[in-house]
């Protein structure tokens, strides 16, 4: 479709990115790395949106719009998350996720 690149390849790339993100989210201990993993997950979804939009409705732009929307929300979310992380750091001198367990029972 995109000058010979089939849809499946897009999907494979997106899936790999998605699971790298999940993996990072589950095993990394640094909060900022976890945030980066989250961005990977979001962006893998964006690739899917764009690919399917081109395949199914080439004359429409909804998939593109949605992608732009996700990027905007992700930017906002990243700023909030980083603000939280900075505050955590100020209080605890530490951003290790396993040692931030103030909210347990």
């Amino acid at each position: 479709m995109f000058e010979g690149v089939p849809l499946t390849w897009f999907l494979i790339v997106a899936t790999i990115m998605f699971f790298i993100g999940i993996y990072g989210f589950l095993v990394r201990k640094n909060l900022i790395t976890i945030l980066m993993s989250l961005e990977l997950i979001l962006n893998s979804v964006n690739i899917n949106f764009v690919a399917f939009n081109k395949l199914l409705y080439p004359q429409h732009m909804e998939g593109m719009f949605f992608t732009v929307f996700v990027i905007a929300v992700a930017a906002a979310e990243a700023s909030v998350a980083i603000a939280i992380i900075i505050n955590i750091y100020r209080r605890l001198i530490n951003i290790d996720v396993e040692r931030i367990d103030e909210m347990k029972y």
Partner: protein
Amino acid sequence: MINFSYTVFIVLIPLIFFVLLGFFGNKFKPLVSGIIGTSGLFISFLLSCYTAYQYFFVVPKIAGAFPKLIAYNTVWLRFTDTLHIDLGVLLDPISVMMLIVITTVSFMVHLYSIGYMKGEKGYERFFSFLSLFTFSMLGLVIATNIFQMYIFWELVGVSSYLLIGFYYEKDSAVAASKKAFIVTRFADLGFLIGILILSITTKTFDFISLTDPKGPALQQGSSILFLGLSTMTWSMIFVFMGGAGKSAMFPLHIWLPDAMEGPTPVSALIHAATMVVAGVYLVARMFPIFVISAPAALTVVAYVGAFTSLFAAVIACTQYDIKRVLAYSTMSQIGYMMLALGVSGYGGHEGLGYMASMFHLFTHAFFKALLFLCAGAIIHAVHTNYMTEMGGLRKHLPITHLTFLIACFAIAGIPPFAGFFSKDEILAAAFENNKLLWAVEYAVAGITAFYMFRLYYRIFWGKEQHYSHPPHEAPLVMTIPLMLLAVGAILAGLVPFQNLVTSDSLPFENHIELGIAIPSILIALLGIGIATIFYRKETNLPQKITRTLGSFYTAAYHKFYFDELYLFITKKILFDRVSTPVAWFDRHIVDGMMNGVSYVTNSVSGRIKGFQSGQLQQYAWVFVSGAIALALAFIYLWTL
């Protein structure tokens, strides 16, 4: 037609002064608040006099009878178009008479209290409560419907409670106020039941339609309901229970002697002249219902009244606290009034008892208030309530002595003092209807004279005691009410009640019957004579008599053990046998169930709280594995 709407101010002025003194009393000097309260009552008093003059002498009579006027009326609480509770002013002979009695005595007591309460803590509180009481009592007598009467009835009870417990730092005063409140509340329960039965049967609260002898209301409820008595009879018996509680009739009398813990002016106003006759007023207000629809209930009234008057008179002979003697004497006299209502018929000369009862209420208010105020002056002078610690006071307290003597003559029924006329009418009414009750009352008349003069001689004659400081006459502000009330106690008997206050509002011919009057004077003189022999000089005769009577005297001295009996019933039976098991059930079964529920919740949550570890990635693991499991499940279902 004359506009009577100003009568609403008779009631409202004490209310305004209650609020004023209650909220801002501490802003004034004590004396100023006393004068403010007294002047408010003076305005009410003048308005009442003007009302009485207009009502009895200016308003045209309807077919020779005094009309029942609704001077003011407002809907206070509207449930539906037919069911609503009004507040208003009803003027008829008895309510106008009560207005005079209450405002007069209350004004005198206010004036007297300026002197009596001088230097007491809570001076302005005292005056605000007095105003509250006066407001409630006035509201009670001018009630246009039975529900309004009930509201003010309770307000009167509250203000009585507040005033009995005025010295709230004294344990005995607190106990007495609680006792008075609980006993009268218990009686008021009966009153409320009576009101409900009555209004369900007759479909009205309004006094005018309730007590119209030819009206439709009285034709209702004559069928047998329960234990051989009709609906109306039962409702009237319950209503009378409320009246008996307020008027300290046997067996609900136990609170009145203890109520003497209050300041003496309060005893004079509430527990002698006004509130305790509310029961009599209630029966008089409902009189047509009693006499036409519920004669059996009226018989109950008569016998309860007669028994109480005898019972209380006997106890009064044995007491040493002068205020308690007067309290029992009050019970005895109210018994007289109840009896007079009980033996009365309706209309004309048949209604002699009704007239006599109201007459006695009127005269009794003057001389009994006077007796209490004198007792206050005596206590003020010698600082004790016990007649054993008094004696020979006549030289020290000349004005009190003279006015007390007048009141004693009045209550003993010696002409021309007020009590003679009213008591004579009561005896005449009893004689015409029931010889047994007449004989009881005749004996009580003698006993009354005896114990009043016993009191008189023990206080003013006999050996002079050693007082901590020489007794001195009370100040003028206290003696002026005494003198004015003494004038009342002499002249009140001359009011022609048979022309003014009668059962059917029509005047009737009535003369003093010598056949009744002379024996009653003789027995009063006999009582006075015995008291003179016993107590004028110190003798050992009383001790001898006491020893002869033995256990009867002891029983009377202990008020026939009624307090002990009630304590036994409430403590041993109600508290120990009923309340304690119920409390146990509540504490162990009901509370136990609730505690069990909370225990289970608590222990389960204690076990499972470890799930919330605070480890973010643990949660994420659970979430991701759940999501994957769901995805696999959907894929499996699709491919099926």
